[in-house]
């Protein structure tokens, strides 16, 4: 095992806890815990939002998908970044000006409906869990891949560190932790990629997709993960195949990947419907992710919320330039991952595979693993804070102002379900589930926010109907995808990438429902709109 690995991981965990404890000195009131007393500067806040946002799916999953499917899946990083533009254009400043603490709070401010508030709480918890479980699983899988440790311990370790950090420091501490983790993640991908590019140069710039198909760069032995046929010959699970340097990489029948030159060009097996559905889900889903939204309440005013979002767009965009390079170089240096199907591990394995097992390769390998750990820690912390915030205000609160002890109880409650789930459900596909979380968010909170902010005639009944129709349909699609049997044909696209029909459905039902119940438009709508849109300096 890589000797730098354990010290590297311990440093990340210690620094995370250390910054959390340091932040604890500032966390005095409940408001400090929930929204950092709204006094975080745009630069800190933007780094924190980015650190929170770049999850296992971004750090590991995007490179893995590119290694596997090529140019078609570049829509994932583009969409993950473009989501912030949609958020900036339609939501950022008015949301901050609404003065709400959490998403359910926004429902209360805008429509004053306790039923809608409860419904929103359910969706926050559902999306939070949907997003949290794969983070913990990713942690477990990384421990298995890199350290040879057990899956359960990896998931449990990250779960406990995150719960302790959120419960002790709350969001004030988390802001600093998240900001640190953004820069750690960027460094962990950017520094190795410089050495990888130099290595690729000194290797004589090998082609990414040679005409004759991919070849092994060095002698490699591959352990097959499932019964399959390799080049027409049946192989069994656990069978070890050996290849010499320069041997072509054979296609494995059970692994869904693009082995040939077509990897370079768009228009693979994904249909146009699936592509557009993915674009819609990622563009509109970001604004509906509860752990992203809760961060906007920490800006001092609407204008700074806007500037923060712009900085986030820059930070996230800079980060997403990197996973593509890992996916492309993985094609050259780690083609065996295409045979095992464990393409998510490409970021973790590439430094050592390309640079050899010397000190440099191992150091950089430890660095990317530390970055992956930061990805799990920061995203899970943010998710847990927002889910705990909702549990705290909407479940435990019961009409009284809660104490910090209640918030800690809420954190432990909110963490226990996903941690337990992640221990029992270990075979869910990480990046796919994250994509589904985006689809649910895009079909429930996105219409609620956009119409709530820009359309005076939205009513509580319309909003509830829209969230139930769009969010409910996408939730059902998620449950079918995760738990149900594999589907074929157009049904597979419609259920596997539901956003293209659930988002318009949510908007339509919400608008129709509001028009039918136009007498229920809140009487103070004028004052609410003034509050959402007028600059703070005009407040009277």
């Amino acid at each position, binding site marked *: 095992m890589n000797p730098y690995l354990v010290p590297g991981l311990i440093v990340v965990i210690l620094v995370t806890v250390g910054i959390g404890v340091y932040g604890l000195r500032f966390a005095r009131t409940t408001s400090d815990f929930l929204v950092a007393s709204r006094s975080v500067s745009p630069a800190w806040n933007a780094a924190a939002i980015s650190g929170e946002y770049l999850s296992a799916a971004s750090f590991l999953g995007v490179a893995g998908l590119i290694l596997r499917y090529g*140019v078609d899946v570049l829509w994932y990083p583009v969409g993950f970044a*473009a989501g912030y533009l949609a958020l900036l254009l339609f939501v950022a400043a008015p949301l901050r000006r609404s003065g709400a603490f959490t998403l359910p709070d926004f429902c209360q401010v805008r429509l004053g409906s306790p039923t809608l508030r409860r419904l929103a709480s359910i969706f926050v918890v559902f999306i939070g869990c949907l997003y949290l479980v794969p983070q913990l699983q990713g942690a477990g899988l990384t421990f298995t891949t890199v350290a040879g440790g057990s899956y359960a311990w990896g998931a449990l370790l990250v779960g406990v560190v995150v719960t302790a950090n959120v419960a002790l420091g709350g969001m004030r501490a988390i802001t600093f932790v998240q900001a640190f983790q953004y820069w750690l993640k960027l460094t962990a991908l950017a520094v190795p990629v410089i050495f990888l590019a130099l290595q690729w140069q000194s290797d004589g710039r090998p082609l990414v997709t040679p005409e004759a198909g991919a070849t092994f760069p060095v002698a490699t032995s591959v352990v097959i993960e499932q019964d399959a046929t390799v080049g027409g010959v049946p192989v069994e699970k656990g069978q070890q195949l050996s290849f010499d340097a320069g041997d072509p990489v054979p296609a494995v029948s059970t692994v869904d990947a693009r082995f040939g030159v077509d990897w370079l060009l768009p228009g693979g097996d994904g249909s*146009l419907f699936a592509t557009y559905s993915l*674009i819609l889900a990622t563009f509109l889903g970001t604004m509906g992710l509860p752990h992203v939204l809760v961060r906007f309440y920490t800006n001092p005013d609407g204008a700074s919320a806007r500037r923060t979002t712009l900085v986030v767009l820059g930070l996230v965009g800079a980060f997403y*330039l990197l996973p593509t390079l890992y996916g492309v170089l993985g094609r050259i240096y780690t083609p065996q991952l295409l045979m095992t199907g464990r393409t998510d591990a490409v970021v973790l394995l590439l430094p050592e595979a390309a640079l050899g097992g010397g000190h440099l390769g191992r150091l950089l390998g430890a660095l990317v693993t530390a970055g992956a750990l930061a990805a799990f820690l920061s995203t899970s912390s943010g998710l847990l804070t927002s889910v705990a915030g909702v549990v705290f205000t909407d479940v435990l609160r019961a009409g009284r102002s809660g104490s910090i002890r209640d918030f800690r109880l809420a954190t432990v409650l909110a963490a226990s379900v996903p941690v337990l789930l992640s221990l029992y459900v270990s075979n869910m596909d990480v990046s796919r589930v994250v994509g589904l979380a985006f689809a649910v968010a895009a079909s429930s909170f996105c219409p609620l926010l956009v119409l709530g902010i820009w359309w005076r005639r939205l009513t509580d009944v319309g909003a509830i109907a829209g969230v139930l129709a769009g969010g409910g349909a996408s939730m059902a699609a998620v449950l079918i995808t995760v738990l149900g049997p594999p589907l074929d044909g157009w049904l597979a696209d419609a259920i596997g990438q539901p956003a293209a029909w659930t988002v318009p459905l949510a908007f339509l039902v919400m608008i129709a429902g509001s028009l039918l119940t136009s007498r229920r438009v809140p009487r103070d709508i004028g004052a609410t*709109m003034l509050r959402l849109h007028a600059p703070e300096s*005009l407040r009277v």
Partner: protein
Amino acid sequence: MTAEDPSAAPRRTRVVLGEVAARRRPADRARSDLAEQTPVGEALVKGLMRAQLALALRLALVVVIALGALPLLFAVAPGVAGVKVFGVYLPWLLLGVLSFPFLISVGWAYVRWAERNEQDFIALIRRPEQ
């Protein structure tokens, strides 16, 4: 004060109170229009909302046309996807590299223009005559 005596009262009120009122009242009226949600105040807020929404929709349309057309373009004209620029296939360059600065520049333009809309709105409230 009521206007019952036409000979003495008008002179006093016209000179002193009239000037103070002209300097102060319109801004106050616009502010209280906002605060009290009079039809004027509501129209002011609606105007701001319309300006901001139009700006957001226009920029969103730019992104939808520029990025959203790409999958269709690659599907309809596969030849475009095969074009190489600096040794890199066009789709990789467009999606993997250029899309991010594009998104950032659209966001930058939005922040600039949205803040200008707000400045205009503040100016309108503070000095409605101009």
